[in-house]
């Protein structure tokens, strides 16, 4: 960070129809939103100057997020509340800024710091029994390992490491809801659909649509777990 710049952290949601956006599409939309909001953003030096902006861990296409983050560097101080109001007026409705605040220059990047993701998954299948599903999921978790095939590659996840706490299965009027806490890391993180999918296939119910929402993105260290903002 250049001297005289201010590092603003913004928490936002990616919901509704906009959960179908890719991470790159979200980045572009936020860049454009920040320009429309007329934030005093800093620009990188060099041949191809662009807005100084850094994002937290990517959300895949079709996954919604309630607690996503980006950092933007400003060339002058503007009250956090004003940045939030300006952004709120300049973003498409389902890409909503929730809060903003200044953070220290010395903090590690969001993508390096955020290491826990909390997911809520709704299984869109009316005839699914909560109890049977909970047992199947438990069996998968107990097996200790999950092998995932993606884009022709095979990856084996150590579930004791990948899951930061026990999954919770509940039921509401829309159907079965699963809550998962997944550890994120450089080596690639477990996609929560893979775990739920494995449970479903144990009960021969694969193919059910799963609506995934990342409800929180957290930083865990020696002192415990906290939100980035």
């Amino acid at each position, binding site marked *: 960070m250049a001297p005289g710049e201010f590092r603003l952290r913004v928490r936002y949601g990616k919901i*509704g129809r906009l959960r*179908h956006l*890719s991470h790159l*599409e979200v980045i572009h939309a936020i860049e454009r939103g920040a*320009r429309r909001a007329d934030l005093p953003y800093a620009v990188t030096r060099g041949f191809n100057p662009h807005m100084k902006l850094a994002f937290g861990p990517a959300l895949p296409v079709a996954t919604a997020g309630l607690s996503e983050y980006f950092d933007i560097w400003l060339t002058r101080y503007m009250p956090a509340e004003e940045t939030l109001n300006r952004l709120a007026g300049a973003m498409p409705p389902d890409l909503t800024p929730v809060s903003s605040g200044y953070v220290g220059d010395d903090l590690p990047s969001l993508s390096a710091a955020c290491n826990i993701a909390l997911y809520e998954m709704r299984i869109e299948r009316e005839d699914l029994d909560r109890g049977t599903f909970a047992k199947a999921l438990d069996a998968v978790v107990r097996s200790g390992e999950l092998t995932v095939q993606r884009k022709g590659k095979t990856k084996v996840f150590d579930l004791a490491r990948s899951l930061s706490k026990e999954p919770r299965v509940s039921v509401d009027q829309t159907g079965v809801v699963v809550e998962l806490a997944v550890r994120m890391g450089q080596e690639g993180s477990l996609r929560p659909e893979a775990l739920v999918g494995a449970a479903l296939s144990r009960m021969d119910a694969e193919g059910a649509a799963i609506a995934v929402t990342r409800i929180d993105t957290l930083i865990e260290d020696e002192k415990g777990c906290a939100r980035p903002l």
Partner: protein
Amino acid sequence: MTSSLWERIEPLLSRVERPARYIDSEWGAHRDSDASYRAALLYPDTYEVGMANQAIAILYDRLNAVDGVAAERVYLPWVDMAEQMRTQSVPLFTLETCAAVASCDLLGITLPYELTYSNILEALDLAGIPLRAADRSDADPLVVGGGPCAFNPEPIAPFFDAILVGEGEDAALEIVAAHRAAREQGYSREATLKELSRIPGVYVPALYSPNESGQGASALVAQAGAPEVVTKRVVADLGAYDTPTCPVVPFMDVVHDRVGVEVLRGCTRGCRFCQAGMVYRPVRERSADQIVREALAGIRCTGYDELSLTSLSTTDHSQLEEVMRRLTRRLEGTGISVSLPSLRVDAFSVSMARLVGGGRKSGLTFAPEAGTQRLRDVINKNVTEQDLLDTVSSAFTSGWRRVKLYFMIGLPTETDEDIEGIGRLVSKVFRAAREATPPQQRGGIRVGVSVSTFVPKAHTPFGFDGQISYHEVLRRQQVLRDSMPKKGIDLAYHDAQVSLLEGVMARGGRELADGIEAAWRGGARFDAWTEQFDLGLWTTALESVGLDPHAIATRSFDRGEPTPWGHISSGVGEGYLWHERERAFAGETTEDCSFDDCTGCGVCGDSGLGVDIVLGGERRGSR
């Protein structure tokens, strides 16, 4: 915004590529569920191609400004989505309110290039609208076309209720107003179409039938009441219209992902192969003040980091230098860049590009079009070899390391000598680039050479002459390859099969409609996409209805012989076109009337269009 149709669309999104094509919700989109009149504006290709279209952005803006009218965007779903929609019985829908297109009052379809014709049928079918105008009932939307291909509308005429020839700023509003009034009066579809045919520039195909006598300029004759010749619409003063400064800002990467300000319309350089140059006359510039104001407003409203000053020949704008200086000053330090679409081959263009680029020196593009001076004179492309070499030198001296050159093969009077001339010219360009580049950087020099096959277009001096045969194209491409230097040169040329189909569609008449329908039924769609294009399918389809594609593409017309587009006028007189053709074959060039005297093309005077050249200042010297 949520409608029951959306609930059926959403589950399909996880099964298709690029769902962002279908989700709407973009910044700048107008959503009005209460409007009493709904117009669906379709670009007959994918979202990412269609979002670049400025004409739709203009009409979207203007129609949405009308009380009670909602204009909504529609793009053709990619094949994966179309398949899902068909299996799930989801009809073609508008993005903004997710309305079924068939439930709209009007379906406006852009006609951007010939290779979208099968897509038009695909869209109508997905919408559940009868393909042929003759089969539609009062319950179906009015299907209206418009755009560059309206200047030879016949191949697709039977699929349209009406086609607008020329500029739509005012005409689109008049069409909607006439349609609303006709409905209020309880007019039948037939009576409504008669009303529409009274609007200048509107062509109602059903009111024209084959000219059995074979006399006159046109292959079709008008029924009583319809104009014998439909003359294009044109706005007299572009400056009187606002640029859409808050267009829809897409989420996904689209072609030309930037805000555009159209700095001028029309080009009178007079290149004899160029349909745009002939049909969009006269030249009308916006003033520097308006351009700068709208450019800044566009950036503010969209949040784009790139601004494009668009037109057929932006560097001809009489105040471009002033515009560029003001914009670069205002945008300094914002990371926002300005781009110029096409550059003239001259030092001024390079100096403008230098202002634009700042540090970015990705590549410059020039279009000498032909390889020898003789042929450049024939086509009236007033660029000399020395102009090109000087321009390239100055670009490479300024730090550029890449240029791209556009050429054509198959131009009238072309010989192998002219094609070999392309190779020779490219070698000289490469040498000029080397000499202007410090030795240690010479390894990075690239010269891109893109060679298309000439398609003779309606309403141009070369429109009377047939396209060269398919086999001749292949032979000339071989001559081209043999004459092209290899080192540092990236040669690309258009697929001869695609050019043949373009020639067929550009030159044929109404008889082609059966062939287009047969091809679509045989599976043709997205013909502009290499992986989807299949000439065999088209040939089979055309032959199945008794048409020979080669004969259509290569057909020439004698003076006085009716052409399929004789009932459509661009305002440029047919006599002028023949005169220009004669001058071409005599190797005589014609001046640009925006720099020199009137060349008598007829648009400003005889056409009755009431237009004249509008310049913001004095154009920079005569050529």
